[in-house]
């Protein structure tokens, strides 16, 4: 057993990667799905095992590829931060996979279904890889694997505009990845290493002689990753991509893809640059806070006026990502913990919301807000789950979203910026409007003839949705997993700083 446990870090990647290869050889959707289900089912146990181990020992787990010692070989380095993000991603994978079967079966042509699951597993492997690796270049490789898989997933959407959206994202995503690798290249030139931990030690001395290339690298990497995580105003690819991707892909990506990118940003800042670059002298934090605020307000306002339900939630995602980056940019313990808590909570809530819309699309084929009038009477459980997750998004007490906002607000006060508290709550009010608008349409209007025959989705779709909605409430009361872990991470990242 101990032998297997030693290899957990690589198994985290190998399981979905191997699953991807297997699914590529299958002919039928159901077989491919079964393989994907096994791989997705194993992944969270590996993540949980890793998280428990790093929390217990307090020491990072280092795994070297092919016994080539770091920094020459590729090192997988698991500490509390990435073990936590691994758990978020793999849990969303686990909860999504039962949902996938029926949803994919109706939205994807049967001969493409095996490929769809291949792409899903490649995407999962890529996202987990970005998070688990301790190597800057290896992170780029996984970033590309996950991105290419994502472009394909989006392009498989039924609407022809899915192709254009995928292409748009391809262009933007490639620019982002290129910027990132330019930054990595600059750092390599200056220090001769690609290992994050090694970079942190070697950048210090290099700062004295090569401070301009290092700052340039930081700028390139920041912009590049910001594109991938859809930080305002680099978010323009996201609404279309989410709106036209197949329902399952949207729900899975909304919970995971941006989270992996946010992780990467946190990693290079807190583990690499913060150690060596005098960040306090640069307005990095101020700029990211300003952009986060812009996201929280402008994207939410756009969501209010959006007519397509999936696009509305997509803009809401841009806004919610703003909360996460806001917390990280505050760079104090409560703020960072708040950002990390919200990473988990937002993954749960947004996946639930997209599941609900996917279930409605499954039964009605519709996605415009107005065409879903009266859906609350036809699909009461689905709509109720949407409302619960929506309340979480608003941050009503008793839901997960409240916990996130509390941490962020205390973080803002500890930063000395009490006015930010009011910004956080004001932007929550915008969520009341866009969620409330859907509620009014769903409950107060008479059902249209098109949805007359709609009823609850099959159990395999309803169960994941209800579990996530219940989790939204559960995580509003039991915060040991989210808040507790996030605080240990913040302590670990910020060390003695307040």
């Amino acid at each position: 057993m101990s032998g297997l446990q030693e290899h957990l870090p690589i198994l985290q990647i190998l399981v979905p990667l191997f699953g991807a290869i297997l699914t590529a050889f299958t002919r039928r959707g159901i077989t491919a799905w079964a393989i994907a289900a096994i791989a997705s089912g194993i992944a969270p146990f590996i993540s949980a095992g890793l998280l428990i181990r790093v929390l217990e020992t307090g020491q990072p787990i280092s795994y070297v590829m092919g016994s080539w010692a770091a920094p020459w070989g590729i090192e997988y380095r698991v500490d509390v931060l990435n073990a936590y993000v691994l758990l978020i991603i793999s849990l969303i994978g686990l909860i999504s996979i039962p949902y996938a079967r029926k949803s994919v079966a109706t939205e994807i042509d049967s001969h493409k279904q095996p490929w769809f699951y291949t792409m899903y597993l490649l995407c999962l492997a890529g996202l987990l890889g970005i998070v688990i690796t301790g190597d800057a270049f290896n992170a780029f490789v996984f970033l590309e694997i996950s991105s290419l898989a994502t472009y394909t997933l989006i392009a498989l959407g039924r609407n022809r505009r899915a192709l254009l959206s995928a292409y748009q994202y391809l262009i933007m995503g490639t620019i982002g990845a290129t910027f990132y690798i330019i930054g990595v290249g600059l750092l390599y030139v200056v220090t001769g290493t690609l290992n994050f931990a090694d970079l942190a030690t070697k950048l210090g001395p290099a700062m004295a002689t090569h401070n301009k290339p290092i700052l340039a690298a930081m700028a390139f990497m920041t912009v590049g990753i910001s594109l991938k995580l859809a930080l305002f105003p680099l978010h323009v690819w996201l609404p279309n991509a989410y709106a036209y991707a197949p329902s399952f892909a949207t729900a899975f990506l909304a919970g995971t893809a941006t989270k992996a990118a946010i992780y990467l940003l946190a990693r290079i800042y807190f583990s690499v640059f913060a150690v060596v670059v005098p960040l306090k002298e640069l307005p990095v934090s101020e700029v990211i806070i300003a952009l986060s605020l812009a996201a929280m307000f402008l994207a939410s306002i756009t969501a209010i006026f959006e007519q397509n339900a999936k696009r509305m939630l997509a803009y809401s995602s841009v806004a919610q990502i703003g909360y996460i980056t806001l917390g990280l940019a505050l760079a104090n313990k409560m703020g960072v913990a708040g950002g990390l808590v919200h990473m988990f909570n937002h993954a749960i809530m947004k996946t639930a919301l997209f599941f609900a819309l996917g279930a409605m699309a499954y039964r009605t084929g519709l996605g415009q807000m107005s065409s879903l009038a009266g859906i609350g009477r036809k699909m009461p459980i689905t709509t109720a789950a949407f409302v619960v997750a929506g309340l979480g998004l608003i941050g009503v007490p008793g839901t997960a979203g409240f916990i996130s906002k509390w941490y962020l607000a205390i973080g803002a006060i500890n930063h000395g910026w009490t006015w930010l508290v009011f910004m956080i709550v004001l932007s929550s009010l915008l969520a009341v409007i866009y969620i409330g608008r859907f509620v009014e349409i769903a409950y107060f209007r008479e059902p249209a003839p098109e949805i007359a025959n709609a009823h609850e989705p099959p159990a395999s779709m309803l169960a994941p949705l209800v579990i996530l909605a219940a989790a939204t409430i559960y995580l509003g009361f039991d915060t040991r997993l989210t808040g507790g872990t996030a605080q240990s991470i913040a302590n670990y990242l910020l060390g003695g700083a307040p």
Partner: protein
Amino acid sequence: MYDATPETLLIASLVIPLIGALLIPLFHRHPNLRETVTLITAGLLASVVWSLYGPVMAGARPELVGPEIVPGLSIALKVEPLGMIYGLVASTLWIVNSIYSIGYMRGNNEPRQTSFYVCFAVAIASAIGIAFSANLITLFLAYEILTLSTYPLVTHKATDEARKSGRTYLMLLIGTSMVLLLPAIIITAAVAGTTDFTPGGILDGKLTPVLLSGLLALFVFGIGKAAVMPVHFWLPAAMVAPTPVSALLHAVAVVKAGVFTVVKVVVYIFGIDTLRQSGATDWFLWVASFTIIVASLIALRQDNLKKRLAYSTVSQLSYVVLGAAILTPLSLVGAAMHIAAHACAKITLFFAAGSIYTAAHKTEISELDGIGHKMPWTMSAFTIGALAMIGLPPTAGFLGKWFMLQGAAGSAQWLPIVVIVISTILNALYFLPIVHRAFFRGTATTSVDAGAVAAASVGAASVRDGEHHHHDDHGEAPFPIVLALCTTALMTLALFFFPEVPMNLANAMIQR
């Protein structure tokens, strides 16, 4: 139950209405059983809350601490005297209101009655949660659930008007609580390191007078349920709901949750000594006074009975706020007494309004000429309620005002005294004409015209229910309605003669 510990009773007081809410839908197809569940739940809840009274007066402060949800702050319950008053009022009146609801909802053939009773039970559970919360976080949780659970009740009719009112209701209550109250709580937690309700307050010496005053403003206007102007608009909007909702929730549970929270924050978070010494709270008195007078003036101009009652509620709620703003122990006793007194009296008035609507399909005051002769029970009860609003003995309304006046005079604050006197006159001006109309205006000559107007205005309703209730040819409302409104009218009188329970609790509150 008789050998249950106070802690068991405390948890039972929350669990019982929630279990009720879960059981009610099971009897969707059996209305009689369904209403039995509501009545049993209400009866059990009231008996549990009443059995907490003894231990609390004996000095017990039963406490339960739940999970820690954010660093240092837990979901926690604790019974203290002020919460006891509010808990007793809400749970006792729920029984009467449930009887009334049965008569009203059936008498008016209201749709979706199951979800009505479910939401009602959840609302009561959250009211009890507010009453017994041990800290601001728990209170805020219950406060928001109360808003959300009453939203479906406000929009019950599902008409365009209901939807619009629902928007106002939700946006004002959620808006103020999120944008003002939540930051106030967060700042309190950051400054004091705790949000526990503590006798004497937790902010002594932690903030400058100006900041203290600002924080108080966040609380006072953030607690939208207290309906201090200008955040009162949700209350008249909520009148679109069925009358039992207006009666128990928007005259008792929801609005009292607001003023109760204001008093609780003043007493247990700020501490009246801290506030008095800061000397930066004059505006607090002025805001309460302004609301009392202006809401009364608006009430004077309302012809719709429920709207007039709503503005009267806005005005009366600010008495409680005024009692807190005077910042003396006696005035706080007055505020606590007024919470109980206004509850009994205002629910009676709403019951009467709903009774008139059910029996006669009348909603406007100008249509009520001579109605006292047809509905003597209803209008007698209404008269008792009206006297209590004015504050005349022998009704409960007298007591609260009396203590507030004493508190103000004792600390030489003249503004509250002037305000109370003026508003008493205004209250008489907008309540007595209704009583006069009902009993002393003839029906023979005027009711023909009024009847024509009424027929036009309630035309739709008359067509639907025309068979069994013609608007000119009616008697009293169904028996459950009359029973309920007579009970609360008697309670309004009884509270004057036997004020021990709320008095003892109010005195226990101001003793450290």
